[in-house]
C-alpha cells in the first residue's frame, strides 16, 4: 500500500519535473528567437547605414545616390508612419544595392577613389551579415515552431501567452540570381 503511494508520488514528481523541463525549454527557445531577431535588426540597421554612407559619399553619380538614398529612407519608419512593411522595404534596399552594384564595370569606375573600396566592402560585409543573421533567426523560428506543435506542449499549453514567432522573409542577396548560397557579388 505504502509502496504504491510512493510509486504514484514518484511518478507524479517525475512527470512534473519533465513537464516543467519542457516548459522551460519552450521558454528558452522563445528567448533565443528574440535574441536572434534583435541580431537581424542590428544587421539591417548596419546595412542601411552603410548604404546611406555610400549614397551620400559623393562617389556615385547623383542618380545612383538618389536611388540608394530613397531605398534607405524607405527602411526607416514602418507602416505606422505610412511606410512600407519592413520586409518589403528592406528587400527594396537589397534590389537597389543590387542594381547599383551590378552595373557593368561598377567597381572599376570607383577604384582609386578615396575611400571607395572601404565603403563598398563595408556595404557588402553588412549585407552578408544580414544574410547570416536572418538565416540563424529563421532556423530558430523553425525549431521553436516545431517545439510548440508537440502534443504535450499544445495540450498543457506550455508556451503560455508567447506568440508563435514568424519567419522573416526578404531578399538579401546582392547578386542577381536568387540563390542564397552567397550574398556577395562574385
Amino acid at each position, binding site marked *: 500500500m505504502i509502496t504504491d503511494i510512493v510509486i504514484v508520488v514518484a511518478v507524479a514528481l517525475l512527470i512534473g519535473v519533465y513537464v516543467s523541463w519542457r516548459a522551460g525549454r519552450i521558454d528558452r527557445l522563445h528567448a533565443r528567437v528574440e535574441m536572434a531577431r534583435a541580431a537581424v535588426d542590428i544587421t539591417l540597421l548596419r546595412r542601411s547605414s552603410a548604404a546611406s554612407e555610400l549614397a*551620400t559619399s559623393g562617389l556615385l*553619380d547623383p*542618380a545612383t545616390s538618389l536611388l540608394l538614398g530613397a531605398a534607405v529612407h524607405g527602411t526607416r519608419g514602418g507602416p505606422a508612419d505610412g511606410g512600407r512593411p519592413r520586409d518589403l522595404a528592406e528587400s*527594396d534596399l537589397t534590389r537597389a544595392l543590387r542594381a547599383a552594384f551590378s552595373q557593368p564595370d561598377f567597381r572599376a569606375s570607383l577604384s582609386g577613389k578615396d575611400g571607395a573600396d572601404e565603403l563598398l566592402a563595408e556595404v557588402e560585409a553588412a549585407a552578408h551579415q544580414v544574410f547570416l543573421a536572418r538565416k540563424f533567426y529563421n532556423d530558430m523560428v523553425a525549431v521553436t515552431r516545431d517545439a510548440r506543435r508537440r502534443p504535450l506542449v499544445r495540450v498543457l499549453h506550455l508556451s503560455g501567452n508567447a506568440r508563435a514567432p514568424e519567419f522573416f522573409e526578404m531578399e538579401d542577396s546582392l547578386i542577381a540570381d536568387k540563390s542564397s548560397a552567397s550574398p556577395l557579388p562574385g
Partner: protein
Amino acid sequence: MRIGIACPYSWDVPGGVQQHIRDLAEELIFEGHEVSVISPADDDTPLPPYVVGAGRAVPVPYNGSVARLSFGFLSVNRVRRWLKEGGFDVLHVHEPEIPSLSLLACWVASGPIVATVHTSIPRSRILLVTYPVVRTGLEKINGRIAVSEAARTTLVEHIGGDAVVIPNGVATRRYRKADPLPGWPGPGGAIGFLGRLDESRKGLSVLLKAFEILGPQRPGLRLLVAGPAGDADEVLHKVPAELRARVVLLGQVSEEDKVRVLHSVDVFCSPNTGGESFGIVTAEAMAAGVPIVASDIDAFRQLLRGGKAGELFATGDAADLARAAGGLLDNPTRRAELSAAALAAVADYDWSVVARDVLRVYETVVLGSTQVKVAAAGSDFP
C-alpha cells in the same frame, strides 16, 4: 534655337511625361527650332529622328514601386557625349528630382537649364534632395516650370525657389474627331474610364461602386473601361454578377482607339483619388468634347474651371459620383453645355499655346548666358 531635352522615363513605355516631351518637341520642331531629346530606350525600339537613345532603363524599386530608371556612370557618359555633340542653347530637363537622365544632365551640364516638374510628391520623399550630390545638380537650374499649381507647391515648399506654372499641353486636334466603336454608346447610355486598372489612385473601384448604384436603375447603361495592366477577372469580381455583362474591359488600347473610346461614351469619368497633378487623360476627354464627371481634387477643379466645364463629385464618394453621372445621363441639354464648355476650356491647353509659353522661359534663361557646356563637376568620371 537649339534645344536639348532630357526625358527621365523609357521612351518605349507609355506615360504622361514621355507624351508631354514628344508633343513639346514636335511642336517646337514645327515652329522651326532644332530639338534633340535624350531618353532611355530599348536598343531595338524605333525612335523618332529627334530622339537619342541612352540605353535601357533598369527596373529598380523606387518609392515603393518598381520604376524603370537610368543611373550610373555609363548613363553619365552618354549624357555628356550628347551635350557635347548637341551644342544646345538651352537644356530642358524633366522631373530632375528623381534618379534619372534629367538629374544626370543637370549635374553634368553648365549653362542655361530649364526644369519641368510634373508630379506633386509627398514631403517625406523630398527630403532626399538635400543630398549634396543631388543638390549640386538641382542648384544649376535657371528656370523652373511646374505643370500644375500642385506641382508648384511641392517645389516651393520642399525644394525652395519658385516656378512658373505652365500647364500640360494637349494636342487637341488629335482628339477632336473620331468614329465611336461599333455599337457604342448604345441606347441605354455609356460611361467611360481610361487609366490603369490596378492603380488605386486612378479610382476605378469608386466608379465600379457607383455603377452598382446606377446599373440597376438604368437597365441599358454600360461601362467602357480601357487601360493597361490589371486582372480583368479581378475587376469584374468587384461588380455584382448581374451587372458584369455591362462592364466592357478593352485592356490597353492604341492612341487611335483611345480617341475612339472617348467618342464612344456619353459621360467620361475621372474618379481619381489623388496623385494627379494635371489630369492629362481628363484634358484629352475634354478635347474630344465628352461631358466629364471628375472627382473634386485640385488638378481637376482647376482643369474643369471649378465645375463650369465638367461636373465635380466628392472624391472617393461612389454615391455622389452616381448622383452626378446619373444627373448628366438624364439631361442631354446639360451634356451639350458641358461639352461646349470643356472644348472652350481645353483650348487654353493646346500645345501651340503651351509651347509658346515654354519658349518664353527658354528665351529668358538664355539672356546673358552662354551655350550649354559640359561642366567640370562630373568630369572625374571615366
